[in-house]
């Protein structure tokens, strides 16, 4: 067991502000839920949105019962800060220890309680990201089971390593690598985890029927409601501003005077990204593409999650522009070159956007050695988290099959799983994309 490191004291003003921000953070969840729903088909819209709602519920319950104990939020337990082993003369804190069912939370430090609330939001968003990628073919119960696995095992491990005194956060102390792995807004713990989980889900469930015909290009299956998608982007901005600023207070211990620039960096990154995606799609297709612009906006927000609290406004704009240029090109590349059917673009937006933000945090951070710390974090996400998630989902798929049966996919997830559609007064036309 490793002793809990002392938490920096938090002023009453900072506590009240963080609590208020955490009440706004669910708008990011609402925004992503709307985007996921809008990017799917109309005949699966209710199932998609109900799935998002259910994932929030499942992750909250599972994280409270099991996950929070393994995440090991400092201050929730007075006796211990986690399990460690010794390697190379250094202590590697790899697993949090705490009471199950949030025991003793009422008497813990206020800052610890805020950290825990942040983690509840984070685990919900992380588990919602792959749900959008499995749209139109991923069964509801399987989606909930996968969310439970993420909330019980993978997210708590990662949250402990990154936020709660685990080995990644101690890279600075143990190896002189800057301030250790930095991730104030959850780019790694939420978005890269969600994006890599989306990749694992897509590998397991396969593409939608008719997506990749025997001859010709991949079939375009555009989202059914651009208004949901774009309104979701605006909602997400409010949530992201709250999320990044609350994260800067809680995990980067930023002073109140540093918070406005964190918010400005978040906005600049998103703005740069959507402007770049607008320009790229205008040049590439002759007209701007609304859903790709939404993906670009979201990629800018995701990238800002890693670095908004660390870098200056100029680099934040640069980070957004790079994310915005890469997003439409990568979405196309993944679909055409490696046959990835990702309706919500989660792999590009959340995984690649998050990885780019984490790298940028190292590139533009003032501390020496920060870049190597960020690279080690990225290596952990790709080399350890992706195989772990894939293995867990692969095993889960043997118990609860992920993919709906062919008839369910033909009539739509709404009718098949819920017995009714989202738009009963509208005629749903036959899918012309099946060849």
């Amino acid at each position, binding site marked *: 067991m490793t002793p809990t490191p002392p938490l920096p004291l938090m002023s009453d003003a900072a506590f009240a502000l963080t609590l208020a921000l955490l009440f706004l953070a669910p708008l990011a969840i609402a925004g992503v839920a709307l985007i996921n729903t809008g990017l799917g088909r109309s005949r699966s819209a209710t199932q998609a949105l109900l799935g998002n709602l259910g994932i929030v519920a499942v992750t909250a319950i599972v994280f409270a019962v099991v996950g929070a104990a393994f995440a090991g939020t400092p201050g929730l337990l007075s006796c211990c800060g986690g399990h460690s082993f010794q390697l190379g003369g250094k202590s590697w804190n790899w697993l949090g220890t705490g009471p199950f069912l949030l025991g003793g939370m009422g008497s813990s430090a206020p800052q610890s309680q805020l950290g825990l609330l942040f983690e509840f939001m984070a685990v919900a968003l992380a588990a919602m990201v792959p749900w959008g990628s499995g749209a139109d073919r991923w069964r509801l119960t399987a989606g909930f089971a996968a969310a439970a696995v993420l909330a019980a095992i993978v997210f708590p491990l990662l949250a402990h390593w990154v936020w709660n005194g685990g080995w990644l956060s101690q890279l600075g102390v143990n190896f002189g690598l800057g301030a250790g792995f930095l991730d104030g807004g959850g780019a790694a713990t939420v978005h890269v985890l969600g994006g890599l989980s989306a990749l694992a889900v897509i590998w397991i469930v396969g*593409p939608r029927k008719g*997506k990749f015909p*025997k001859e010709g290009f991949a079939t375009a299956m555009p989202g059914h409601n651009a208004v949901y998608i774009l309104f979701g982007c605006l909602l997400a901005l409010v949530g992201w501003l709250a999320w990044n600023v609350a994260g800067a207070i809680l995990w980067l211990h930023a002073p109140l005077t540093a918070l406005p620039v964190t918010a400005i960096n978040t906005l600049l990154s998103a703005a740069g990204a959507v402007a770049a995606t607008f320009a790229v799609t205008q040049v590439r297709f002759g007209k701007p593409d609304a859903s790709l612009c939404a993906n670009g906006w979201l990629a800018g927000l995701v990238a800002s999650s890693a670095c908004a609290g660390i870098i200056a406004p100029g680099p934040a704009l640069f980070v957004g522009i790079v994310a915005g240029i890469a997003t439409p090109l990568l979405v196309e590349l993944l679909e055409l070159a*490696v046959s990835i059917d990702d309706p919500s673009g989660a792999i590009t937006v959340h995984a690649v956007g998050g990885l780019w933000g984490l790298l940028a945090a190292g590139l533009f951070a003032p501390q020496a050695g920060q870049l*190597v710390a960020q690279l080690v974090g990225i*290596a952990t996400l790709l080399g350890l988290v992706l*195989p772990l998630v894939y293995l867990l989902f692969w095993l889960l798929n043997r118990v609860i099959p992920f993919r709906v049966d062919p008839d369910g996919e033909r009539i739509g997830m709404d009718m098949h799983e819920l017995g009714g559609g989202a738009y009963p007064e509208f005629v749903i036309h036959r899918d012309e994309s099946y060849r």
Partner: protein
Amino acid sequence: MKYAGLLVLPAGFFLSIAALLLFPSPAPRAAFVVCGLAVEGLGLGVAMRGHMEPRGGDRS
């Protein structure tokens, strides 16, 4: 192919961790961490290729 790629990914991770333990000076440490990431990139590429669906080969 698909599982081989996934097995290469942790190899890259352990290479990065080994760099932290074996190289105290910054330059070789950074170089080996980058090598670990390159190995992960190779593994990811192999896993991507291995998971590619045959054209028209829908599972449903």
